[in-house]
């Protein structure tokens, strides 16, 4: 798949690019909004994190063993959980347990399916595919999952009266929560659906751009993009669905009672 030789960026080239960040910081200083240090700090983090990731991947590619690959995936998953924990203000009961379980099954399943069945890698853990794919799938699912978790909470507290009315008519907790679950699932998938519809016209996605830059034939790059979008959609829907299905139960007791103070 090695096509054209890609232009290698040397240190002076990077320094020049970093000049654009300094420009951003300079503009912020001009506006006196106190953002300049934040910009510099964030850009520094970006540089250090990416360099570290680059060397780490270099190392992992070299030793050809599944264990470090899986370890990286676990760290990525854990990190996404931490980011979600920071994002989602109103947390459902047992938030971390529910979300980690959903991400593990939803993202893990989609990534495995994509790498080992659709692309058909041998070995299935080939880090050149597995790590970037998992990154894209987890990153995108995280947004959907945050939306699902947040919406579940607000629907559960907003529909308390409705759910108790349903329970009084003999509804099970699942039946009582049905409307809330439907709304939350819709909200979780919205971004992904909009993204798919805008794909190729409004947005040229990162993976495709990267492959084209690396000299891959655009028609081939497009096929990869289509496949990864499908995997992301599957992952977002399964992860969100699991969050809702595992999450709503914690609002009810086994006797189909809405718990006090949870909503």
């Amino acid at each position, binding site marked *: 798949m090695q096509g054209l030789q890609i232009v290698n960026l040397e240190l002076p080239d990077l320094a020049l690019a970093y000049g654009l960040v300094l420009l951003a910081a300079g503009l912020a200083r001009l506006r006196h909004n106190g953002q300049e240090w934040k910009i510099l700090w964030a850009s520094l983090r970006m540089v250090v994190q990416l360099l570290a990731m680059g060397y780490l991947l270099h190392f992992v590619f070299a030793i050809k063993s599944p264990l470090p690959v899986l370890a990286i995936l676990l760290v990525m998953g854990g990190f996404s959980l931490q980011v979600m924990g920071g994002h989602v203000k109103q947390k459902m009961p047992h938030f971390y347990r529910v979300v980690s379980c959903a991400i593990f099954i939803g993202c893990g399943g989609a990534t495995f399916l994509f790498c080992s069945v659709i692309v058909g890698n041998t070995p299935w853990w080939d880090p050149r595919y597995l790590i970037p794919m998992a990154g894209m799938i987890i990153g995108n699912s995280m947004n959907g999952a945050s939306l699902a978790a947040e919406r579940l909470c607000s629907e559960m507290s907003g529909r308390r*009266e*409705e759910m*108790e*009315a*349903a*329970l*009084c*008519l*003999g*509804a*099970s907790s699942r*039946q009582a929560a049905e409307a809330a679950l439907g709304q939350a699932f819709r909200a979780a998938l919205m971004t992904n659906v909009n993204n798919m519809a805008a794909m190729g016209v409004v947005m040229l996605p990162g993976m495709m751009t990267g492959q084209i830059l690396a000299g891959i034939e655009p028609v081939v790059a497009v096929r990869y993009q289509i496949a990864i979008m499908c995997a992301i959609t599957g992952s977002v829907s399964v992860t969100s669905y699991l969050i809702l299905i595992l999450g709503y139960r914690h609002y009810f007791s086994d*006797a*189909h*009672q*809405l718990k*006090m103070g949870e909503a």
Partner: protein
Amino acid sequence: MMAIPALEKEESLRLEQVCVLRQQGAGPRRELLSGISFLAASGEISAIVGPSGGGKSTLIRLLNRLEDPTSGAVYLGGTDLRQLDPLQLRRQVALVAQKPFMFQGTVLENLQRSFVYAGKPLLAPDSAELLRALAASRLDEEFLTRDARSLSLGEQQRVSLARALITSPGVLLLDEPTSALDRRSAEELGQAFREISRQQRLCVVLVTHDLALAGRIADHCLFLDGGRILEAGSPAELFTRPRTAQLARFLAGPAPQEV
């Protein structure tokens, strides 16, 4: 799970030494109800009156198991509620809440809800059960096609009564059913409750701070204050000869409604 028992006149709902403790914030658990025992019989209306915050709403929520007591037990026809299937129980012990909640859709769709939940065939608009529930709740057939959420509060409360009656329950729980209504609707609904209890031999438990309503329709009255039953008897006894200072104060209260 045991089958829902057939109700005898003598013992429909019975509470024995019911206590409810609840954690509120970081503080110690507070006692919302303590040592509550009473019996509500079929064909009679038992009213629980008392000031707000006295535990009335908590008490009524125990009777269809929206909550469970911390200690003590509630029996339906002699069987502990916790041994019954909660979903079937709530069809047998129906509740009309203080504020009627109407599901989106027509009145007919609202009335069919419990059949949808139970996975049973829906009632036809002209079925005998449906017409009986409508008539008992003083609603015309023409209401069936109306949008439930566009109705007045009084009409909504009558729909929620019909919705409760449609599963032919043995016990009807009424939680401040008239407090959101104007006086005319409240009186009309009170009349409906009385007829339902007599004609369908229902056991009705009414929770209210409206002494006028309790005095007009109840056979028995309990005065609940501070989580305890302080007095019990016929409404006439309680309202004319209070034995405790709390009841006397409640009767003379800041907003006494006509007795």
